[in-house]
Structures are given as C-alpha cells and as structure tokens.
C-alpha cells in the first residue's frame, strides 16, 4: 500500500475510534441520567435563539434534580 493511502486509512481509523469513544462517553453519561450537552445547545439555538442557554454547570444541576426528583423509580 502506498503512503497516502496508508495515511488515509489511519485517519479513517482514528475518526472511527474517536466516534466510538464519543458514543461510549455519551452512553455512560446517559446511564446516570445526564443527556448530551451539545444536543441541548443545538436544540436551544434552533428553538429558542432569543434566550441564553443554561451553562454546563446549571444544565448538570438541573439534570441532577430531575433524576432524583419526584416520582423517579429505581429498580430492584
């Protein structure tokens, strides 16, 4: 295999690994009740462009209250 092709294959592998790591991260965070902050920001920018979005700290605190708030069951 020539060099540019090898480099392209490596970079494709790198992208795939990064993507895999990102979704693993996202899965782990959602498993404890914290959804993706980037998705929230994109949603907010699209739907409510006139108001500032929550900061990450406020977003995190909000999700924390939601997870342990009223009526959230836990399993046996």
């Amino acid at each position, binding site marked *: 295999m020539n060099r540019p092709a090898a480099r392209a294959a490596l970079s494709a592998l790198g992208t795939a690994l990064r993507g895999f790591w990102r*979704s693993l*991260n*996202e*899965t*782990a*965070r*959602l*498993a*404890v*009740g*914290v*959804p*993706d902050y980037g*998705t*929230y*920001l*994109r*949603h*907010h920018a699209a*739907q409510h462009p006139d108001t500032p979005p929550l900061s*990450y*700290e406020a*977003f*995190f*605190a*909000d*999700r*924390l*209250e*939601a*997870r*342990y*708030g*009223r*009526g*959230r*069951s*836990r*399993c*046996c």
Partner: protein
Amino acid sequence: MTTAMGSNTLLSKLGWVALALVGAACLGVVALKRGEPVNAIWLVAAAVAILTIAYRFYSRYIADTALQLDPTRATPAWRRNDGLDFVPTNRWVLFGHHFAAIAGAGPLVGPVLAAQMGYLPGTLWILAGVIFAGAVQDMIILFCSTRRDGRSLGDMIRGELGNTAGTTAMIGILAIMIILLAVLALVVVKALAESPWGTFTVAATIPIAIFMGCYMRWLRPGKILEASMIGLVLLLASIWAGGHVAADPAWANAFTFNGRQLAWLMIAYGFVASVLPVWFLLAPRDYLSTFLKIGTIVILALAIFLVRPDLQMPALTRFIDGSGPVWSGGLFPFLFITIACGAVSGFHALISSGTTPKMIANETDIRLIGYGGMLMEAFVAIMALVAATALQPGIYFAMNAPAAVLGGTVESAAQAISQWGFVITPEMLSQTAREIGETTILSRTGGAPTLAVGMAQILHNVISGDGMMAFWYHYAILFEALFILTTVDAGTRVGRFMIQDLLGSVHAPLRHTESWTGNLIATALCVAGWGWFLYQGVVDPLGGINTLWPLFGIANQMLAALALIFACVVLIKMKRDRHVWIVALPATWLVICTITASWQKLFHDNPKIGFIANARRFADAAGRGEILAPAKTVADMQRVAFNNYLDAALCGLFMTVVIVTLVFGIRAALAARRNSSSTAQETPYVAASTVGA
C-alpha cells in the same frame, strides 16, 4: 439482484436453523446429562442461542402484529423535544440507559436462592419467563407509555381502567417499594454481619462518595467520568485496606457488628442519605454503583467464558418437594415467585414508563430497548445461577440454610448437610471461610455472600495469587452492597414523595417537596415502614430472607400482573383482539402464581409456609406459657405472632390489589368490545416528518 437476495435469505434461514439446532443441543445436554457435572458453557450457550432466536422472531412478531410499530409516527421525544427530558436519542445509547436502570440486585439474588432446587428449574423458568412474560411486559409498557407522552404506569392505569384501579395500583406500588427496600437492606445486613472487612469497605464508600460529590460540585463541576474514575480507584484501595482492618484485632473489633446493630445503622443511613441534598452523597454513589455494576457484569460474563466452570449442583435436588432449607414451599408456585427479576419483574413496568419513553427516537427502537433490554437482564440472571451452582452444593447449603437448622459449628453444619445427601467436611467449611478472609461461612443467607463466593472462585481462576480469593470475595460483596445502598437511599426518596402525595390529600401543605416538615415526616414514615420489616427479618429465627423474599417476589409479580392486565385492556381497546393472547397468556400465569402463592402464604397448614399457621403456633404456645426458640420471653412470642399476622395482612393486600385490578380490567375490556372503534387514549398521530424527525 433477485438471485443475490434469494440466496441471502436462504443463507440467513440456514443460519437461524443452525443456531436453533445448537441451542436445542446445548439445552439437551443441560437437561438430560445426569450423574456427572455439566459444564456451565452448555447452559450459557443454550441461553444465548434461545434468547437470540426469541429476539429475532418473537419480538419481531409482536412488533409487527400486536403493536404495529410505526416508523412514520412522531415519538414524544420529537414532538416535545426540550433538550432535557424529551430528547431523541440513539437507540444503542438509550439501550445503555435503560439497561442500567432495570438491572439491579434482584436478578442476582433470586436465581441464587432458587438454586436449592438444582440448576434446571431456575434455568427453564428464566428462559421461558423472559421470552413470554418479562420481555413482553417491558416492551409493551414502553410502547404504551411512548404512545402516551411518556406517562407513568399508575397514570396510564388510571386513564384506561378508571380512578379506583389507578388508586389501587398506587397503593400496590407503595407497598412493593417498602418491601423491596426492606428485603434489599436485609441482604446487605446479612452480608456484612460479623464481617469487619466487608463493613469497612462498604462504610468507606460514604466518605468516597462525599468526596466525589464535592469534587463535582466545586473542584470540577459536572465532570462525572473523571470523578467516577477517582472514586473507583479509592474503592479498590478500600478493599485492600479492609483486609488490613480485618487482620488487626482492635480495628476489626471497631468494624464488627451484629445483625441488629447493622439494621439500626442502615435505618439511620437511609434516613440521613435521603434527606441530604442529592449532589452530596446520593448522586455520586449512584454514579459509582452504576459504572461498577455494568463493569462487573461484563467482567463476570468474560470470566465465565474463560473459566468454563463445571456445575456442581445437580440438575434437580430433593428439595423440589418444598422442604428446602433456603426457602419453604413447593416448586409451584414458589419457584416462579423466588425468581422474579430476570424472568419477569413488575418493577420494570415503572422504569419502562419512566425516562426511557421520553427519549425513544423512533417507535421501531422499542423492540431493541424494551424486549432486548430485558433479555440482557435474563442473561445476568443466568450468570448468577451459574455462579451459585458452580459452587459445591455442600458450601451452598452451609451458606444459605438458617442457623436454626445448621447449629452453630462447622461440625454440626457438616453433619446436617451430609444428612441431606451432600458431601462436605467441617475442614472444607473452615477452609473456605479462611480463603475468603471471613471467620465463618455458615448461614450467610441472603444470596449476596453465596454469589460473592461463586464469583470469587470463578474470577480467582482468571487472576489468581496469594490472597486474591479474599480480594475478589470482598470486591463482589462491595459491588452488590454498593448498588443496593443506592437503591435504598434513592428508593427512600421515591417512597417519601409517594407518601407526601398521599398525606397531601389529607393536609395540602404536606405535599410541597420544599417543605421541611412534610419532607421529614414522610421520610420518617417511609424509613419506619421498611425499617420495621428489616428489623423483623434480622431477628427472625429462620433468617428473615425466608419470610421477606417470598413477600417481595409476590409483590413484584403482582405488579407484573397489573401491568399485563393493563396491556390486555389496551390491546382490546385498540381493536387488536386477535393478538391479545400475547399478553393474556403471561397475565393469566402471573395472576395464578401470585394468587396461589399469597393463598399458601396465608393459609398453608405448615407454619414454615403459612403466616397465620405460624402466628397461631406462637400465640398458642404463649397462651400455654411455653417459650419457642428463638423467642426468650412471652413478649418476644407475642411479637413474633404479631409480625406474622402483619405479613399475612400484606399478602392479603397484594392479593386484593390483583383481584381489584382484574375486575376493573375485565370491565374496561368488555366496555371496549361493545364499542366498534378504538377507545385507547393515545396521543393523536403526528407524522415524524413534520416535527423534524
């Protein structure tokens, strides 16, 4: 093109036939081989093949016929997208979220207790139960909730079956919550009693979690994974330190507690942890336990494939007649009560109508997340069964039979167990205790210690070395205790909110979650509720698990029966009568099981099974002035009698809840049949394409 597709389908068909043959062959080996130990890999391979086939064919059949999942229909995640609660989520990411929420201690403990009948009854029930009942329930409730904007089970029952049925369900849910917390707390108490090593490591999780909480609050706000990694390293260090604590007489003494002391500590802990702000202790502990839980399940699966232990327990033991020492009662109905989680768990109906339906991106994902998620839990239950039955039966019964049966010494225990036909010597019992770094393994009931010894023996074959057996044992105890404690504090909070709601209907200000009076009163009531049953279990002569686990199993199956009756009504209202058998079949089975089991727990003549018979035995003896062990005074005797009447009342309540729901279900179904069009209260159809999906 057509030829390529044709040969593809043919190839795929051949593949499925081959998988079915492999599964059948493995199950044949498991079921029919007698006299010599069967390797666990046969059981695991059979389970994997059968569950895969069930997923491919049965869940697709349900999705296509009864539910008619519609990829063009907008889910609540799209219609109400707010970036917070309602977020369209990748199906695999959501699968992880859902599985982490449903998998708890239940599928680990139930199969261990059921192992007293041999490995075969438990295996067959887990496989049949999950395919036709458990996974069906999870999938259909997830479907119903997704079609109703993510409403909760209680709400949906109120909507489709009426207010009375809804209120009955709410009372049932509160009762199961109390029993669940009591029995899980009892499992931890039993695992930590007289064990300084275990108690130290579990106690160490409190400062570790508080440190993580402060770290995520002030040092590095919201850095969950970072804080969890630090917490994990500290946890492993605390296991190592626990060994030194146990080895030092003074320190060991400071961390040695008996069951009663631990019960009071648990009650105090449950109260404090659920009243404190969640970021301080509850949330960080939850993060740790969630990651440790998933990680350990993966490690255990890999280890079973690597080690491939032999199953030492026979396929069937003599205890299928109902005379077993671990729990009393015949195979029917009590096997189906003992293994609830892993086969069918009513609690999942609460999870499937919780956060998951608000994040479903497409209706067709319901199949993977609802049905597939439950199959994963069944696989966890199979692994727990493997770990328990890979132990020598003598060790298994030494750990799980109550002290009243075994006597207090290794000699008396070995003799009692040998009389049941399982070979064990006193030396083997002491040797095992030494290996795992404990003073004794006798009557360590509750399932957790047994699973921990089983896991330690398997993991020790992967990473062995001097003292590693004890390390793995305490790792497994920590793993179980950690997420049970998380359930206890988070569950106490949920119970508190339920009680505040109930109190609020009497005196409105008590409902406000910010009100400290309401908060403290409701928390105290909730803790007192489960604390009562916990303490009663700790002082119970037969070890408490014997009494409380069947009650919990009945409660959990009762909830499953409720959910499935509700599902029947929904399908009938949707005019899908032709497919209603899919849910009517498991609903009927669960109604039969819960009613029979409750009836026997109430009225059986054998005081080991019937609560009322046992209460009478103590009350009558007290009347004659006799004292029955373990009671020491007449007042003790009267308390035992009272507690048995209380358990009986609870059984009666569960039975009533099932019957009331059944009556209202039938009424709603008949009314729906008189109507010629669909009467299900779904949110109206919105095309996915119109909301950006």
